């Protein structure tokens, strides 16, 4: 398997930050009250992770081991602040929605974790790809969890889309269950833990099933009984 393919697979599935590494749970649990919230923060994180990995990787040989963590944090915090200021200046509407979440990215340990475990040891292009894919893996989990909580909690999907794309996007908000009175637990913090637990269980179940299938195939092909195979 090529390096790039492996990085992609690691980020999205094998080492998914949200449901396997369980890193960056603070925003995962706090922000995922709706699909739009989850994906918005996810995409902002993707950007920060790719930028952080891409910044650290070229200078990794100049960073002494003893001070690597302060340097990484410095770079990440500076990047997040730059992104925060830029969004505020050039996409004010988006900043009103995402504003309170952006500083949270600094404390998201997945960013530091990828810088430390990948960008500090690899060349820039794979590092940027790793940041992108790990970020997308997290975005996927944030979006799924946001969707689950929004659907169960409020009976809608994509609510708040108009806050990101302007009033015209309001027509894309789906009311899945009309006249739904809401299930508060899903929107409150316990809903985040329960939902994440279910996602982890679902992922593990799929992984186990895949492994069992692979083992079956292996057993069948090594049994030298071609006549029995369809």
């Amino acid at each position: 398997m090529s390096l790039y393919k492996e990085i992609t697979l690691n980020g999205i599935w094998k080492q998914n930050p949200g449901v396997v590494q369980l890193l960056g749970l603070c925003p995962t649990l706090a922000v995922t009250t709706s699909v739009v919230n989850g994906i918005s923060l996810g995409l902002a994180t993707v950007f920060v992770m790719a930028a952080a990995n891409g910044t650290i990787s070229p200078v990794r040989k100049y960073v002494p081991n003893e001070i690597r963590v302060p340097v990484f944090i410095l770079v990440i915090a500076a990047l997040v602040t730059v992104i925060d200021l830029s969004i505020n200046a050039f996409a004010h509407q988006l900043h009103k929605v995402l504003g309170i979440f952006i500083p949270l990215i600094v404390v998201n340990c997945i960013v530091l974790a990828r810088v430390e475990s990948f960008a500090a040891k690899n060349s820039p292009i794979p590092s940027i790809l790793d940041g992108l894919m790990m970020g997308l893996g997290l975005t996927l989990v944030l979006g799924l969890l946001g969707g689950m909580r929004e659907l169960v909690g409020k009976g809608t999907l994509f609510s708040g889309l108009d806050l990101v794309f302007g009033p015209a996007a309001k027509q894309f908000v789906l009311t899945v269950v009309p006249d739904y009175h809401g299930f508060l637990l899903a929107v409150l913090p316990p809903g985040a833990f329960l939902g994440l637990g279910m996602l982890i269980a679902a992922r593990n179940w799929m992984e186990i099933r895949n492994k069992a299938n692979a083992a079956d195939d292996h057993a069948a092909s090594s049994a030298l009984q071609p006549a029995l195979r369809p």
Partner: protein
Amino acid sequence: MSENIIKHAIKTAGTLTAFALVGTAILAYIFIITRAPIEASEAEARLALFAQILPHDTYNNDLLKSELTIPPNALLGNHVPSKANIAKLGDKTVGVILEAIAHDGYAGDIKLLLAIRADGSISGVRVLTHKETPGLGDYIEIERNAWITQFSNESLTKTAAKDWAVTKDSGKFEYMAGATITPRAIVKAVAKALQFFNENKPLLLENKRTDNMQPSKDEKREDKAQSQSKVAK
């Protein structure tokens, strides 16, 4: 040996300092180039908010320039001086836009913006910032629910003091099941802000205290310039 350690320490410290310097320089640069656009979009957002709670055709001065600084006041709930914007139609003050803070929300302060007409009735209220539970207490935002509009046209004369409460506390204001603390705090804060307005009418409407106001002559001139520029447009 010890010399090596010192050398190493100096080198490490130097590297960290270099990173910090470069980082600070980049941040300073970004801060400087984004400051003007951020201020512009904030002013624009503020004006858009003003337009929501005070109709454009009721005044003709530049609200952002006609500002009054109000010292911390318990009725407004602010601990630092806040801004009041005075709306005028010609020479007559037609309304005041005040900031008020409710401290007894469910999570943190709720910052409100109120437009009060000269007769003491509310033109509109909006929530500026809050930290209430998403999906639960956030119906106070106009983007999510029209709840906040029930304060329009309310006043202390129209609604008796005892009715300034949510229906659950036998008042007259609606609330939504699941989040009572949030609307309670807002109803209370709005009532207190109205009280502040009534107690400080001379200051707010006639600008009796001139120490933190621009001289009224200048303002008149500004008004004229404003209306002229409007004509020119």
